[in-house]
Structure formats: structure tokens, C-alpha cells
């Protein structure tokens, strides 16, 4: 079963990881982005109670943490789907055909960029250059990067996801 905000905050391992990150850098505040990544990875979003928890651990105000969460693209305050599909749409990938890939995924999943399927399995978003322009169109699925993604290849990638 996937974690909920309450179960994550009650999880001792999560607390240990946050504390280890706070101790990893010369000053604890440098660990903020890493702590937010931990939470985003576990819950697919960073809800207010987790923002407040991390703020407490790092000696910050919750308002400061919220400001950071809303600034960076990789954190979301609303839950994202189990699988995040990120289509690169910047010029080099556009030249390689990213618009065809995006159209295909929109049709296949019945989604507009920025939205999530009703069953919570997939979120589709567009992203800016992923630094693999020689492999355009590039697609990131969760932590994995795929290159030269044709519609057929995208179908195969999605089929492999449980």
C-alpha cells in the first residue's frame, strides 16, 4: 500500500532519513531540497503537514518552506499520479518530433498536459530541455530517461509500467 501523509510522518525511517540529510551538509538548510524530494518521491506531492514537519526539522518556518515548494517545478502541492510522464517540448526536441509524441500520449491517456488520469495512475506534463537533446524526443518516466521516443516506443514503455 502506498504511503499517506500521516503514515509517512509516523514512519521512523523517514524521520531518520530527514535527520541524516540535515546532518549531511555544512548547514541544515542546504538539506531542504533533498528533504522535499524524499517527500515528493514517497507521496507524489508535498502536503502542508509534511512541509511543516520538514520546516521544524531544519529550523525554518512553514511559510518559507511553502515558498520553496511552489518555486520549484519538481514539487507539487497536489497529488500527482503514480507514474509521472514528462515530455520535453523545448526546441531541439521539437525539431525531433516531440509534438507528435505529446499528441500521441494525450490521445492514449485522454489527458491534457498537467492533468492526471482518474485512476491516479498517470500524470502527463511537458518539461523544458532535459539535457539530452541528441536523443530527442526525450521522455522521462519517473526517474528513467528515454531517448528517441516514437509513439510506438512510448506504448511499449507504458505497457511495462505496473
Amino acid at each position: 500500500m502506498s504511503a499517506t501523509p500521516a503514515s509517512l510522518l509516523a514512519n521512523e525511517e523517514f524521520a531518520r532519513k530527514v535527520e541524516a540529510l540535515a546532518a549531511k551538509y555544512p548547514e541544515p538548510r542546504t538539506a531542504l531540497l533533498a528533504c522535499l524530494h524524499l517527500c515528493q518521491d514517497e507521496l507524489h506531492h508535498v502536503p502542508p503537514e509534511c512541509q511543516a514537519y520538514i520546516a521544524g526539522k531544519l529550523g525554518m518556518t512553514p511559510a518559507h518552506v511553502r515558498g520553496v515548494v511552489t518555486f520549484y517545478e519538481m514539487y507539487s502541492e497536489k497529488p500527482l499520479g503514480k507514474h509521472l510522464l514528462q515530455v520535453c517540448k523545448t526546441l531541439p526536441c521539437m525539431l525531433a518530433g516531440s509534438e507528435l509524441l505529446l499528441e500521441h500520449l494525450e490521445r492514449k491517456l485522454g489527458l491534457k498536459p498537467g492533468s492526471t488520469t482518474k485512476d491516479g495512475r498517470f500524470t502527463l506534463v511537458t518539461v523544458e530541455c532535459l539535457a539530452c537533446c541528441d536523443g530527442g524526443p526525450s521522455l522521462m518516466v519517473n526517474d528513467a530517461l528515454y531517448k528517441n521516443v516514437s509513439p510506438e516506443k512510448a506504448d511499449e514503455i507504458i505497457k511495462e509500467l505496473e
Partner: protein
Amino acid sequence: MAETLKILTRAVGMQNSTAIDTYMHGGGYEAMMTALHKMSPEQVLGEVKASNLKGRGGAGFPAGLKWSFLPRKREGDKQEPRKFLVCNADESEPGTFKDRLLIENDPHQILEGIIIAGWATQAAGCFFYIRGEMPQGAKIFQRAVDQAYSRGFLGKNILGSGFDFDVWVCRGAGAYICGEETALMESLEGKRGQPRIKPPFPAGYGVYGVPSNINNVETYANVPHIIKNGAEWFKAIGAPSLPGPRLYGISGHVNRPGVYELPSNTTLRELIYDFAGGILGGRPLKAVIPGGSSTPVLRADQIDVTMDVDGLKSVGTMPGSGGVIVMNDTVCMVRALHNLMEFYAHESCGQCTPCREGTHWLELLIARIEAGEGKPGDPERIAEIAGNIMGRTICPLGDAAAMPAESFVRQFKDEFDAHVKEKRCPCKATPMTSRI
């Protein structure tokens, strides 16, 4: 045809190339040992200065000179003043993908350069700031750091030299602006990535307000080779205005996109036609962006120039980050510019009015022209807005957006005018070449 160089990219494609033993087997960390055991910090700094190594992150500032701005211990001081290095691995400039290659294939080469730079500047440690969308790269680099600690190449009293130095891997979280040096430092302090007003410069006020030096991944990766082979060897590679090996990442409409390690006296034509195999679909070349999306665009008749500072300057552009974006005749230049302006408008941090408003206006104005709803005078208006952004902002992102806008209209004025006059996109008839 000339061959590509195998200096920075030596390990690419090699088995186990990220392991410390593989790296050391090929002579890795010898330069660090030479520096720590046989050279004073001043000697290392002198060698890097003499090499005229220029920053590979985009602005091309001489690295040795930048290092020399950091304060050093003065006579009578007990300790070195506290200071930090930063390695900029945020690689987010559209068209740029060379740092990823180095990080994923040869992390120890970067790390060795960082340690040598640490010795030269007597810094306390280095923050390795890698963009959030490179989780694998972060893991690979962290593993390299752990291996270096286990060999005594990092930590306290490195190899008995009395020098203490740490490296901390930090991940970004999806913000192009965090590649700007002071935004990156704000981000390292757990804040929103908004650039600081300069001065003070990082050498006086950097991470945590402590003097700091920031360089790009590729810049640090060059350092071991300079220490090993000497400044004269380095200067003999490429044109004098951009010495040393350089990574050019070429993407878009070429047959063999990828990263090519070349001397800077290679011409753009050679890169496109000889190394990258010519234009996709055998079609005519239309335009080239030579150094990442922020550098002014060139027309097909301007590619007989070398890719050093002087060569590219002669056609009104610059080497930037080495990201070459090639477009064939199926590309609508209005549409291409619109794509770039969406990027800059989205990535503006919003602190300065000319950048926040200007990039947004440009995006809307270009969208209007693209949709066939442009009004007479709109192309001129793009140049005017771009001119009003240039030089009027806190950080160079404003200029980075203005330069493509101004140059696209100047270089392809006919095409912008035709959109306005014909009230449609005259290029739509030819579908754009795609790879998939």
C-alpha cells in the same frame, strides 16, 4: 577529415568507466597527487592562469583569474579564510547536454579537477549542484565521492598533505534559473532560486555569505589535464581565444547528433557536415544556434567560421555553452522563436520587470504573428522589446531571452514580415522534418 579529440571524453563508452579503479588505471588522480605533493597552491593557480582555460558554462570567464579573486591567508593569520567552491551541474540551457555525458561516464575526472581547484584556492569544500532531473547522474557522482573518501582523496588531511576538503552533492528541483550562479547559491541555502544583485560577487559573498568560486562541470574536468600536461600543451589545442579541448553538443536536424570533443578552430561547417553527418533528410540547412538557445542565431551562409570566441564574434554570436542546434528548411523561424520564448517566459524568476513582463510580451507577440494575426510593425516591436530588456536586469537571463529574439528577427526578417503580410504561416505547406 580531422578526428575528434579523446581528452575529456576518453572514458566514454569504456567498461566500468565510473569506477575509481578504472579511472586510476588510466592515470587518474596522478595530477591531484602531483598538485598536493609537488606544487604549492600558488603554482597550481599559476598553471591554470597560464593555460587561459575559459569557463565552459556559457560566459567564458578565465577560470584561473576567477580563482585568484578568492581571499587567501595573509601573513600572521593562523587559518585560511573559510571559502567554498561550487560545481555547476545544473545543465539546463536548451541545446546543451555535454555535462551529462561527463557526469554519467567519468565522474572522477570532474572530481579530481574539483580537488585540485580546492588545493589551489585552499577552499573548505565544494558543493556539487546537479539538476533535479538527473537522478542517475546524482547517484553516479555521489558514488564517486564516496569512493574518493574511502581512498583518502577527500576528507581530513588528504594523502598526508595537511589539506582538508569535502564534497557535498546537492540536487536541484527543476528551475533553469538555478544555473545562474547566485540563484544557485540561494538554492543551496534552501531558498527560492532568485538571483542576487551583484556586486557583491560570489568571490566576496557566496554560499552562506562566505567567499565562493563557481565553475561549470566541463571547466573543472579540464583541470587535471592542465596540471598533468602543462599550460603550453593546453594552449596549443584550438584557437588562442578559446584554448583547450571543447565539447560541442549538436542536436536538431543533423544525421548524427551527439557530443563531439574538438579543438575550437574547427569550423561550424565541419562540425555539421563532417562530424554530425550533414542535414537530416538531405535537405538544405536554414539556421544554426551555435552555443545554447541564448546565443544569437546564424543563417546557413554564416557557418564558415571557427567555433572559438573570435570566429563566432565575426558573425555576431558567441560560443556560449557549446550547444549547437541545427534547423533545416522545413523549420518555421517564427515557430522556433516562439518555442524559445515560451521557455524564457516560463523560467523568468519574476524579480525584474523588464524580464518578467518582457519575456511574456515577446511570447504573446510571437504567438500572434505565428497564428497569422500579426499587425504591421510587430516584427520591429519584437526587436524593440528585446532592446528594452537587454542590460536592464539583475541577472543575464533577461539578455539570454533578448538575444535570440533580436537575432531571429534580424536574420530572418523576410519570414516574420511574410507571416504578417500573408496573415498565415507561409511555411506550413512543408511538414517539419521529424526523427520519429
